[in-house]
């Protein structure tokens, strides 16, 4: 089975995000980056399917030059090769524009299965996989918690809301968006890291893929959200703050 895993590099989860005064985007100069967490689970799902059923795992990643470090990490974990859609203007793309580039790169691979995370930790649009599926004319299923390979089809467990699940069966080729927690992530081994250096990492430009479509939706500015509530912060060392909080719970919230 040939599996494409689409993954994105995002600022590390604990990044302190600053929007410089007068700027419309965050200061990226001292951020560290990582593989988007749901995409890491998608990669792991792809690697496990390959181990069970044979085949190949190809990583497709759209991002600036620096995204190569995340691609190398994916190769070190066991992906066979990678395509890097290298472009420094992707932050201006909207979800349809990005989906168009990814779909073009994935179409050229003609995979049996496309996996990606259900959403990105930075923009959180939660739609790339479904957009790509539609552009490729493939069936899709989202928020997947388990994948079972049948003959020419897959049976997957979709997460619904409020603790409900559902099994659905899709003919291959198909696109799945993977939920965090579907499996246990592996670490790259030293051997894997060494091997990754010799694996194919092919850079392509947006123009190679037919060009990045003009954005329909423009992000005008980002800013810290206003607080919905006035939070009363309890100050002091841990003991002082905790004692003050316990008093609030007793005398104001009246739950003690």
């Amino acid at each position, binding site marked *: 089975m040939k599996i494409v895993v689409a993954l994105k590099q995002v600022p590390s989860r*604990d*990044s*302190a995000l600053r929007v410089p005064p007068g700027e419309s985007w965050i200061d990226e100069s001292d951020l560290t980056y990582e593989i988007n967490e749901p995409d890491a689970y998608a990669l792991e799902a792809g690697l496990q399917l390959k181990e069970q059923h044979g085949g190949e795992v190809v990583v497709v990643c759209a991002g600036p030059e620096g995204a190569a470090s995340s691609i190398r990490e994916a190769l070190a974990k066991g992906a066979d090769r990678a395509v890097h859609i290298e472009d420094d203007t992707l932050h201006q793309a909207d*979800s*349809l524009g990005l989906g168009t580039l990814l779909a073009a790169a994935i179409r050229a691979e003609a995979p049996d299965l496309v996996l990606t995370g259900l959403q990105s930790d*930075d923009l*959180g*649009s*939660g*739609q790339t996989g*479904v*957009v790509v*599926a*539609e552009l490729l004319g493939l*069936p*899709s*299923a989202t*928020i997947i918690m388990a994948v079972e390979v049948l003959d020419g089809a897959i049976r997957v467990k*979709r997460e619904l*809301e*409020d*603790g*409900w699940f*559902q*099994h*659905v*069966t*899709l*003919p291959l080729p198909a696109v799945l968006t993977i*939920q*965090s*927690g579907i499996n246990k992530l592996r670490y790259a081994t030293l051997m894997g890291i060494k091997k990754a250096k010799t694996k194919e990492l092919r850079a392509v430009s947006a123009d190679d893929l037919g060009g990045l479509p003009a*954005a*329909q*939706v*423009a*992000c*005008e*500015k*980002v*800013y810290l*959200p206003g*607080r*919905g*509530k006035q*939070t009363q*912060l*309890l100050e002091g*060392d*841990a*003991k002082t*703050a*905790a004692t003050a*909080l*316990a*008093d609030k*719970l007793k005398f104001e*919230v009246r*739950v*003690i």
Partner: protein
Amino acid sequence: MSVLVVLEQSNGAFHRMGWEAIVAAKEFGLPVSVATIGPAGDAASKDVAKVYAIEHADLAAYSADGYTSALEQLIRATNPEYVVFPHTYQVRDFAPKLATRFGKVFISDVVKLTKTTAVRQLFQGKLNADYALPASGPRFLSIQAGAFRGDQLGAGTPAVEPFAVQISGIRVKAEAPFRESSRAVDLTAADIIVSVGRGIKEQENIAMVEELAAALGGEIAASRPICDNGWLPMERQVGSSGQTVAPKVYIAVGISGAIQHQVGMKGSKCIVAINKDADAPIFEVADYGIVGDLFDVVPALTEAVKKLKG
């Protein structure tokens, strides 16, 4: 010029987020019609211009292919300027497909609207972003749970118009939905919930939070990563994929407060946040907050509570 809101129902019960989406859609200042897949039901008694009831045997069970095809036909026939959805799991499964079929961008999980701008949350709720809406319609948007007040939707007597569709080519076969755990724990009945997140770092540290819950006489709950790791059972998960709770007090320990968690608890009467990161989104909804190391604060709070209880 009109707005179409697509409602969601299962077994005749409408998803409450659909009413919120209608309230949001009214921001555009245009007549709002709604589409139901299935009978018009409760939608026929709401303050909307018209109800398009789409009924077809092949739409009885949800499928992305079937829903996309049906709504594509309705949108082509009625030409709405805006198509608004509740941002449910089901909508996430098909709305991007529908918008893409029109060559349009789907603007998802919107928390605030004007006629020309949609506000979305980025970085798990740490930042807001203003997006200029596309110049031409149909513009596809979904509305975050709880961002608008569904109870502001008044009563009405809209015309109900059956809309006939042709459905073919459904590729995904769905089985009946099921629940995994028997829900032995009903968090919705608890007055006090102490909830734990990633900040707890190790499974063995959960005990510290359990002691606080016990001292308060409350239930312990968790954000998704804790349950994914198997540190607490899934049935104790609060958030969009877990339970939605509204206790008298909700104490979030080491929980950053990503959107998916907040939708499950922001209705709590009082929210307390204990987190080392003063910029964590949880503080946006907290009534009381302690910015500090939970490994110092939680034992101190347990002690203080025990002392007050004598």
